[in-house]
């Protein structure tokens, strides 16, 4: 069984290089990039943290992050792993299948990547030569643990979560990633910025006691000469490994003796793409339709592509005028978010094709408003989190992250809320659906300029209070002022968004037939 699975894994590895010259070249390129990434991941701490103690801390931190992602990623991303169930019909026991799958996982791309990373670490850390026994134990534990994590996580998901729930899981995973990213960036930048800082040391101290950081922490302690501490961490890791192997065995046994629950009758929504992933409620299907349109309609892509250019021009102008470059870094994200929220201020006319369907079915205005905001939120919210962490990295002071995040969040929510009102209140002729994005609308004039100016002014006006609060907090980077700026920004944004959807919805409810009439004359 073990030999057979090893052969299968080998064939799977080789298959990456089949399929013609171009496919092979692409696979080779990916392999080169992956190897470079593995070496880079090993080399980065040595480059960024020259002090031996800091480097050891960064090493433990990065190793923990790696192991944690190996454990968590299979939960959220449906990877093309072999499943125990596929071998259920072979003449062998569940234990045989489990052992064979576990051992043969050595021959998978992620494990090979891990091996490259560990080899690079050994080469790049000459100080490790003195504690070869600890290096060997840590490496073995890391390898066995990572295989166990990956196997248990993916088997668990496949066994427990039904197919239809996978997309929800993926969303949760993406969200977790977005929230974890700034934290990771903080701790690291803090470590690099101020040698001997407590933040990183504290973080690694805690991580060393988790099953993710234990092997690396053991190695780091052995390096300091604390054999007792090292053995404790190795023991912890070994204990977790045993536990995982037991769980893996149970999962395999369960998996080969059960079948997937068939989908209930009538619930065959497959093939409706995004509509499969949203609940069957008016607001959610409108959101799904909006997203489908943003994906299929080139007009939206042009809008999205145009948005990043505005801040570039602004930055260059201000930089030439001699503004402080550190503060300039704060500027692009709110401008992009303002434009993103503002870009839907004429959504009803832009997306006029069948607004009659909403009206003829008596859809509530607030549902129409909220649903149409889905694409903006789906692009904007991750942008707020990731962009804010990038901003503070450039600004060079992570303590202002809450204030920066509060400011950006409020700008996005406020401009989206204002757009909600204006697209129902003052629709003006837009490029028709199906036309080229660069086509001029058939009907000109009539309020386009007014609606654009007014909606932009109102969005700017309502953005001023939270931006002022945040700017104050950025000038005075205390934890309290920053926390207040974040909470105030988020609350202000949420209230205005809610009001915008509500007021826009009321306007829609009252004037729906007129909206149909107006958008039809544009057609």
């Amino acid at each position, binding site marked *: 069984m073990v030999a057979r699975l090893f052969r299968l894994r080998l064939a799977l590895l080789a298959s990456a290089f089949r399929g013609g010259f171009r496919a092979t070249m692409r696979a080779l390129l990916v392999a080169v990039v992956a190897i470079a990434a593995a070496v880079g991941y090993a080399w980065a701490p040595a480059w960024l943290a020259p002090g031996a103690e800091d480097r050891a801390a960064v090493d433990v931190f990065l190793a923990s992050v790696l192991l944690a992602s190996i454990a968590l990623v299979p939960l959220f991303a449906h990877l093309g792993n072999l499943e125990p169930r596929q071998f259920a019909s072979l003449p062998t026991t569940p234990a045989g299948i489990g052992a064979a799958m576990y051992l043969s996982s050595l021959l998978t791309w992620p494990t090979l990547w891990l091996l490259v990373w560990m080899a690079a670490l050994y080469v790049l850390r000459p100080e490790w030569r003195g504690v070869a026994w600890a290096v060997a134990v840590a490496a073995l534990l890391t390898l066995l643990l990572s295989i166990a994590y990956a196997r248990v996580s993916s088997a668990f998901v496949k066994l427990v979560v039904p197919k239809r729930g996978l997309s929800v899981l993926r969303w949760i995973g993406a969200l977790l990633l977005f929230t974890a990213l700034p934290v990771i960036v903080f701790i690291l930048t803090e470590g690099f910025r101020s040698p001997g800082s407590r933040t990183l040391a504290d973080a690694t101290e805690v991580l060393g006691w988790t099953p993710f950081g234990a092997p690396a922490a053991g190695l780091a302690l052995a390096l300091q000469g604390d054999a007792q501490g090292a053995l404790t961490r190795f023991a912890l890791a070994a204990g977790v490994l045993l536990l995982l192997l037991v769980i893996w065995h149970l999962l395999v046994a369960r998996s080969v003796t059960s079948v997937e629950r068939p989908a209930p009758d009538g619930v065959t929504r497959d093939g409706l793409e995004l509509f499969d992933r949203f609940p*069957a*409620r008016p607001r959610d299907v409108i959101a799904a339709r909006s997203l*489908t349109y943003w994906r299929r309609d080139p007009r939206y892509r042009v809008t999205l592509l145009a948005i990043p250019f505005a801040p570039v021009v602004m930055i260059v102008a201000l930089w030439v005028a001699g503004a402080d470059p550190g503060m300039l870094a704060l500027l692009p994200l709110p401008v992009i978010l303002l434009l993103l929220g503002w870009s839907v201020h004429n959504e009803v006319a832009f997306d006029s094709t069948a607004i009659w369907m909403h*009206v003829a*079915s008596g859809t509530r205005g607030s549902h129409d408003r909220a649903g149409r905001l889905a694409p903006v939120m789906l692009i904007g919210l991750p942008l707020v989190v990731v962009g804010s962490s990038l901003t503070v990295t450039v600004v060079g002071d992570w303590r202002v992250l809450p204030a920066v995040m509060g400011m950006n969040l409020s700008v996005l929510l406020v401009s989206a809320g204002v757009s909600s009102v204006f697209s129902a209140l003052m629709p003006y002729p837009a490029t028709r*659906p*199906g036309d080229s994005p660069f086509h001029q609308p058939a009907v000109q004039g009539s309020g386009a300029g007014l609606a654009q100016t007014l909606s932009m002014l109102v969005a700017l006006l309502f953005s001023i209070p939270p931006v002022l609060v945040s700017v104050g907090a950025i000038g005075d980077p205390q934890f309290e002022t920053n926390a207040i700026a974040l909470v105030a920004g988020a609350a202000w944004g949420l209230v205005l968004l809610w009001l915008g959807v509500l007021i826009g919805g009321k306007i829609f409810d009252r004037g729906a*037939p007129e909206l*149909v009439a107006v958008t039809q004359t544009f057609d």
Partner: protein
Amino acid sequence: MPSVVRARERAEIAARNPVVLQAESLTKSYGQVLAAADVSFEVHAGSLTGVVGPNGAGKTTVLSMVSGLNRPTSGRISVRDIDVWGDGPAAKRVIGSLPDRLRLFDRLTGGQLLYYAGVLQGLDQKTVAGRAAELATAFGLESALDRPVSDYSAGMQKKIGLACSMIHAPEVLVLDEPYETIDPVSASNVTEILEKYVAGGGSVVMSSHSLDLIQRICDHVVVIVDGSVVARGTVDEVRDGVSLEERFKHLTRSDDEGKGLEWLRGSSDSD
């Protein structure tokens, strides 16, 4: 039994049924232009009522006022005693509508569009899935459900629109030119579906400028000329012994049309 016989029989039964849709003095003016003037008619349960009139008579205006898409300047329209312009959402649960010349969400696939229409009408997922499949089969669209509606032919778009208007099992269907652009085979299929629907107690108001078609499948008829109702009742009452077309010519006083034009002889003036 041909549909015309069924229509005549249905007229007697439907006339005794309660009224489900009542339009009272509907008026719509666009500035100086009067698109509909004092239009009143009623539709009985189980009736297939046709609205006919010459081009530009105001059929679309009247039907869109009935389905809640075009606000009347004055007048009242009620469905099952619910005021369409007083309690829109409640009335629209009872009405299914197919406007003419308005675009569908045509970047969705047929399946997505049906699902969308059903959920907007408040149906749960299981019901929508079942009904969407049945409607697609009934209209012969099963194989097209995965294609974007914008790729459909005009007739198929009409059919998917019809299917969308029926998905929430409304009591009244308001259909503007449902037969336009549909091929003859599909048309008889649509007729079959509509007849089955009214036999089950539903009511249909549909416009068409094909008098032949209205005479053949409708039991009641409303004739609109220049925004006003000039005749209404069962088809037999309105046509009064002659064919609907003859009667219609008389009602619209269009006997004289086509005269003049003596210069249009098919031989070129330049000879």
